[in-house]
Every structure is written in C-alpha cells, then in structure tokens.
C-alpha cells in the first residue's frame, strides 16, 4: 500500500453549539483518487474546508506528507502543495482567463516584487498557456473570466489550482450545476488528473463517483460512517440505510 499523504486525526469543528464535524479520523493515500460523500448536511463541506485550510479545526490534527499542518495560514497551503477548487465558482471575473491562470502560476515566481515588470516573467505566462490548453480553454485566453460559461469557469478554476503544481488536489463538487456534456468532460479531466497526483473529491452525487474513485469516505451527521472501495460501500448496510435508501 502507498504512503499516506494526508492524515486527519480526530478532527472536530464546532460553530457555536452546533457540531458540524465530530471526531473524524481518516487517511488519504498517495496517488489514490478518493471521494468524500454523504447526504446534505453530513459535514462534507466543513471537512473540505478543514482539509484545505479555509477554517481551522476546533480539535484534532491534520498531517500532510508527515508534517503537522494544523492551523497554518490559508496561503501556506498552496505553497506546501495542497490546491483546491471551490464549490461556488471563484475566479477573478474582471480579468482575462489567461491572467487568472497567470496570477495563480506567478505565485511560485514572484509575490511582492513591485518594481520588476510583469511581462519579464515569460515562463509564467507560457505556463499559463499550457494550463489553459490542458483544461480545454486555449482559445478563450483573452476573454474575461466572467464572460465564460459556467462549465468553462469551473475548468478555469482547475487550471488555477493546477498552477501551484500541487501534490494534492481537493475539489468541492466539481460537477455542481453542470450540464450532462460538461459533467462528462469534467469527469474525464478528473480521471486524467488523478493519474498524475493525489485527488480528493467532495461529491453529493454518489453514482457519479462510484465508477471513478478507488476509495470512498462516507460522512453522516458530522461523523465518519464508513470507508472502503466502491464495492464495499455499496454492500454496506448502514450506508444503504442513510444514503442510498433516499433514492
């Protein structure tokens, strides 16, 4: 079995008196495509936000590559190799698609240099071109990100996430609000991406991930309900009761 890349140890998160996530421990292995699933309100998004550094856990620890990363700042995540794509599309709407990716790629080259010329970073710009091509947006680089179709904006976001050259990519409902065609394009993109790096998906639609992922983690009422291969999860009586039973 491959090395663990990300380990959650007894993670809890409270909002006031409400416990959104309660004592969840699990391990994500290098190179494995894992999906976190669960019905609405299961704590998937909270779990995602903890693993990507948007919020800090109330209790517990997160280890990445053997290092304790609990409570480090949001911007550190991209630098140590954890990138994410958001559930609600988060792009720089008034900037061109190319500039969106270029800014994301620039992070590794220059952050606070205010006297050098941006145009001198030609490698960064080329990198952005490559990434746009990767997600199928090569022809749309000059368009404003806000003018792109919904599915294209999501692809753009993935290009931005990839720009930090992450070891681990987390995606929050990557196919949310997409048409069937856009969904199948996205699924094949995810499949390709997962051959190069570790990918973790948060997904609401269980059918979608069954054929795609090697491993599933099921959350329910903020607790870990089950984990295993798609076949194991399908056979799990508990999971069938709380999740599949709903249709």
């Amino acid at each position, binding site marked *: 079995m491959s090395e663990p890349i990300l380990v959650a140890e007894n993670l809890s998160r409270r909002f006031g008196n409400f416990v959104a996530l309660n004592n969840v421990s699990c391990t994500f292995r290098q190179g494995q495509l894992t999906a976190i699933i669960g019905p609405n309100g299961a704590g998937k998004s909270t779990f995602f936000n903890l693993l990507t550094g948007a919020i800090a856990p109330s209790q517990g620890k997160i280890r990445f590559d053997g290092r304790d990363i609990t409570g480090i700042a949001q911007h550190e995540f991209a630098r140590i190799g954890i990138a994410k794509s958001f559930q609600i599309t988060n792009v720089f709407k008034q900037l061109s698609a190319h500039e969106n990716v270029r800014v994301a790629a620039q*992070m590794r080259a220059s952050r606070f240099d205010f006297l050098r010329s*941006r145009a001198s970073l030609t490698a960064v710009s080329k990198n952005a071109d490559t990434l746009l091509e990767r997600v199928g947006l090569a022809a749309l680089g000059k368009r404003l990100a806000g003018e792109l179709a919904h599915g294209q904006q999501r692809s753009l976001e993935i290009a931005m996430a990839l*720009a930090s050259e992450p070891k681990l990519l987390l995606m929050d409902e990557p196919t949310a609000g997409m048409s069937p065609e856009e969904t199948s394009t996205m699924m094949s993109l995810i499949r390709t991406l997962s051959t190069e790096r570790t990918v973790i998906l948060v997904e609401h639609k269980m059918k979608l991930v069954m054929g795609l992922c090697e491993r599933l983690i099921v959350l329910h009422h903020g607790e870990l309900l089950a984990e295993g291969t798609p076949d194991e999860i399908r056979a799990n009586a508990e999971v069938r009761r709380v999740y599949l039973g709903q249709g």
Partner: protein
Amino acid sequence: MTQANPISSAIALIAQHRVAAVLIFLLLFPLIMPYEALALNILIFGLYAVGFNLLFGYTGLLSFGHAAFFGVGSYLTGITIVHFGLPWWLAIVAGTAASGVVGLLIGFLAIRTRGIYFSMVTLALGQIVYYAFYKAERWTGGENGLRGVTVEEINVFGLTLDFVNPLTKYYVLYVFVALALWLVSRILASPFGAVIESIRENENRTAACGYDVARAKLLIFTLSAVICGLAGALRALHLSIVPIDSLHYLLSGQAVMMCLLGGMGTFFGPFVGAAVFLYLEDVATSFTTHWMAIVGVVFMVFVLFFPKGIWGTLVQRWQRWNNHSVVTK
C-alpha cells in the same frame, strides 16, 4: 488588408507609453489653464488621487482616512522647514517618509477589517491624526495652520530658480510628480500589481493561490500613503502654509470623488477627475458660494450615467470600438 488603422495604432502607442504620454500632457498643461495656480493645484491633487486610486481602484479598498497621509506629508515638510531649517528637497523627503510610516501604522490596524468596517477604521484613525496635529499648536500652529513655509528661491545644480514664479514652481514640482507617476506605473505593471488586482476581484481565491493577502494589503496601503504624502509635501511648498484642513476628512472624501469622477482603476482617470473637480470648483466659486451644490450635481450625473467615470468611459468606448474594428477587418 491587415493594415492597422492609424488612429488605433496611435492610441495603442499612447497606452503602451502611458507615463510618457501623461508627462507630455502635464508639461503643456499650464498653457491651457486659465492661471498657473489652478494648474499647480490640479497637478498636486491629481497625484493625490492617483495615490488613493492604488488602494481604491486597484485593490478595492475604500479608505476614508487618506487626508491623514496628505496632511502628514504637508505638515512634516512644513515643520522640518520652519522649525529645523531643512533644505526644501530634504523637507519633501522627510514629509513623504513620515506619511509612509503613518501609513504603515494605520494600515497595520485597518487591514484586519473588511468592507464598511475598513472604511470606518481608516476614518477614525484619520480623525485621530487630525486632532493630534490640531492640538500640537506649538509645532503645527493649530487652527491657524503652519505659517512661514517660505521657499523663495532654490538652487538646482548651480542654477538659481525663482520659486515665487508660479510657472517655475509648477515645473519644479512637476519633476517630483513625474517620478511618482513613473513609480505608480511600475507598481501596476509589476507582478505585485497583478496580486492587488486579484485581491480586488476575489480575496479568498487570491489567498488560495498562495498569496499572503494581509501582507499584500499592508504593502499597497503603505505605498499609497507614500504617494499621497508626496502630494501633501508638494502642496506645503506650493501654498507656503499648511492649513489644518489638509488633514480634514472632507479631503479624504474628495479623493473618492475625484477617482469616481475620472474613473477608478484606470491610470490617468484620477488625474482627469481631479482636474474636472478643481476646475468646476474654480468656475463655480466665481459666481456662487454654494459651489458644492454644482459639483455635487455633476458628480451624481456621472455616478448614475457613467459609472466608469470620464476617463474610464472613454477607455471602454475605445476598447469596444477597437475590438469591433478588429472583428470586422
């Protein structure tokens, strides 16, 4: 068939060399103004609005306390000349540097907040600076302002210039404005310039890309304060006195108006806004004491019908026309 339109290529050339274009314009500017003092005022407040625009138009942070930086620049230039007898150019450096320090302090406290709270915190801290200078009467002259910031002649490379002559004064201060505009253009074209625009567009995404948003905000806040402080320093030399309203929150509000009028988030827009604002004020005060009402109406017309401002609308029109002509070529 692909022959470029001469107008279009001329505009592209100007856009490419925006600093040079603005500087040539400002070189000729006193000739088209009714009198030199107005040209000087526009030169100084244009720079002030450009500095403010770094934060407002490019980073998306609305500060209501920028008079503090303008005023500190003015006062420290005045104080170092009146009380310490510093040469005029060193006084400008002192005033500008002091604004940078105050900008760093106020920025450090203000960037922890967002949206309307940011505006309110900058307003409150700006008022604290106002009262501190108001009370320090021994140094600042209090309510009467600081008098006697008189520089009659200056020596530049062995050349003695008559600083009382408004046109000479204009071109001496012009050199400082030119340097500042070059710096602003550099900042905007830099990798860091891309980061602040990303912050304006989406703060969370910028952080997720790996940028320390708080640090970037503090840096641009301080740079903005330095530019506004330089504008204040130049005004002290222009007026020979530092009035207490240099620190007044009305002046902070004027920066917002100038940016909106001219076009926030464009390089030259704030200058256009400052020029229109001050020209209107100048014309309107000649026949009514209620000039604010006239300026207010013009301002409202622009906010309602041209939300991109005068310069911003022109730039947008040109871009559309240019894109259109490219498509139909």
